[in-house]
């Protein structure tokens, strides 16, 4: 079966292909996660914290010619309510729950609400939240503590999602030392857009995070550096739009990739990527996992 050419395993998490739905994209409802899981290797839910977070008022997302800038502000119904929603997940791909918090304790507490999760992704990198995300994720010592605490609270694989706005290797290492099973690099990059006619920032939060093809070279560099310095697997994230991008991330050292902004072009993006990757794997006659890190000397 040709789809088997795409199989990868990240920290014990077996996936039929390396395409993971990124957190914050279409991940608020089980219904859309179910739909996307038809073709994805895994899906990640929208980031959730202990309590409800309202997020910023609209506009929270603006597209530009090279990607998307968003400042949704980690809006979330809170762990209890969101766990109820996600219980309706019945997709065939592993469900990874993205978690945010302001302290190691909060992170650990949130995970306890999702016993059905296949793995957890720790949001240490959202660039537009006052209390969460990058605010905690820019301190390597805190990152290490958070990962430690979460690892004690769950026996599921734990992935630390890190930012390119800090020293990615330093924070990645801290997560590794804390016991992380993998690193996800990168989250959106701090950025903003101003409307020149009204002379106002477009996002209600003034600034947000840039995603999409614009940031791909930045993400590739982070994955490359992490692969050189760390032992644990890396999941690449940032601007995956075509099958070529997936291959590039894997050559840089990623065991899998997250896809997000490309959904702006089509809900069928994951399906198309999957089909293209099968064609590529057949053409070069190798399993995708053989590409992991293959560009390193």
């Amino acid at each position, binding site marked *: 079966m040709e789809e088997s050419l795409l199989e990868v395993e990240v920290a014990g998490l077996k996936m039929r292909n390396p395409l993971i739905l990124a957190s914050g994209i279409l*991940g608020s409802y089980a219904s859309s996660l179910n739909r996307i899981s038809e073709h994805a290797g895994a899906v990640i839910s929208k980031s959730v914290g202990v309590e409800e977070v309202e997020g910023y008022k609209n506009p929270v997302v603006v597209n530009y010619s090279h990607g998307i800038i*968003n400042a949704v502000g980690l809006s979330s119904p809170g762990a209890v309510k969101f766990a109820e929603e996600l219980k309706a997940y019945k997709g065939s791909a592993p469900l990874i729950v993205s978690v945010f918090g302001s302290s190691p304790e909060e992170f650990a507490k949130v995970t306890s609400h999702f016993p059905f999760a296949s793995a957890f992704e720790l949001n240490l990198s959202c660039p537009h939240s006052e209390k969460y995300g990058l605010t905690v994720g820019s301190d390597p010592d805190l990152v290490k503590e958070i990962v430690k605490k979460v690892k004690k609270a769950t026996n599921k694989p734990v992935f630390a999602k890190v930012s390119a706005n800090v020293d990615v290797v330093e924070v990645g290492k801290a997560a590794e030392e804390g016991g992380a099973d993998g690193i996800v690099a990168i989250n959106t990059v701090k950025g903003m857009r101003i409307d020149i006619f009204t002379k*106002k920032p477009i996002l209600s939060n003034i600034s947000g995070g840039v995603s999409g093809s614009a940031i791909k070279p930045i993400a590739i560099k982070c994955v490359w550096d992490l692969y050189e310095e760390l032992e644990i697997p890396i999941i690449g994230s940032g601007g995956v739009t075509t099958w070529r991008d997936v291959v590039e991330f894997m050559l840089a050292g990623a065991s899998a990739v997250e896809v997000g902004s490309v959904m702006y072009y089509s809900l069928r993006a994951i399906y198309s990527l999957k089909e293209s990757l099968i064609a590529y794997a057949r053409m070069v006659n190798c399993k995708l996992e053989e590409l992991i890190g293959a560009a390193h000397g």
Partner: protein
Amino acid sequence: MFTVKIEEVIEHNERYSTIIFDRSFRAYPGQFIMLHVFGLEEIPLSLSSENSVTVKAVGETTRYLVKIKPGTRVGVKGPLGNPFSPTSGKALIIAAGIGAAPLAFLQKFLEKYAEEISTIYAARSYDDLIFLESFGECRVATEDGSYGEQGTVFDLVYSEDLEEYDRIYACGPEIVLRGLYNYFKELGIEKRVEMSLERYMKCGIGVCGSCVIGNGMRVCVEGPVFNCADIVW
């Protein structure tokens, strides 16, 4: 996102205005825009023509919008979403309340293509019937009886022979659409019906997931117009 200038504001009454932009969009009936009032909010609004939206004052932003001054620049993303699919046969339009806005646009469009158009238009009160002129000849009901028959949209729909229509188009409050949905399913004609749904939207461009409905479809991209048979309620 780009910005447009507001050219004219037609205040139908205290609660309703049609806002006309200084340019037309390449849009089809049923499509919407994300309209950004700088300093307030960005909200989804159905186009009521190629160059206008029609707004009902319900929240802070819409209250501001119905009184907005011509000349103001607003941000626009769009036109977005999936439009109604026109018919060359017999069309029935079912409009309830402010749901009439995209259907008024559709009516103008179908006048060129459809063999025949019948329209049902219902609202709470005469003050809510701001598209009477756009629809022209139509069956009208108001809940308070201030215009047309006294009754609801259901009263008008139940008394129609729906078998004779090639396509039925409906838009209105969710409670109305759910009622119609059940009725059409009972009759087994849901495949001939298109409904425009409304959901809270953050991005409008298919990525945030806040407008996803029961079957995993996004109202902002796969909708807002769905074939009734594709809706899971």
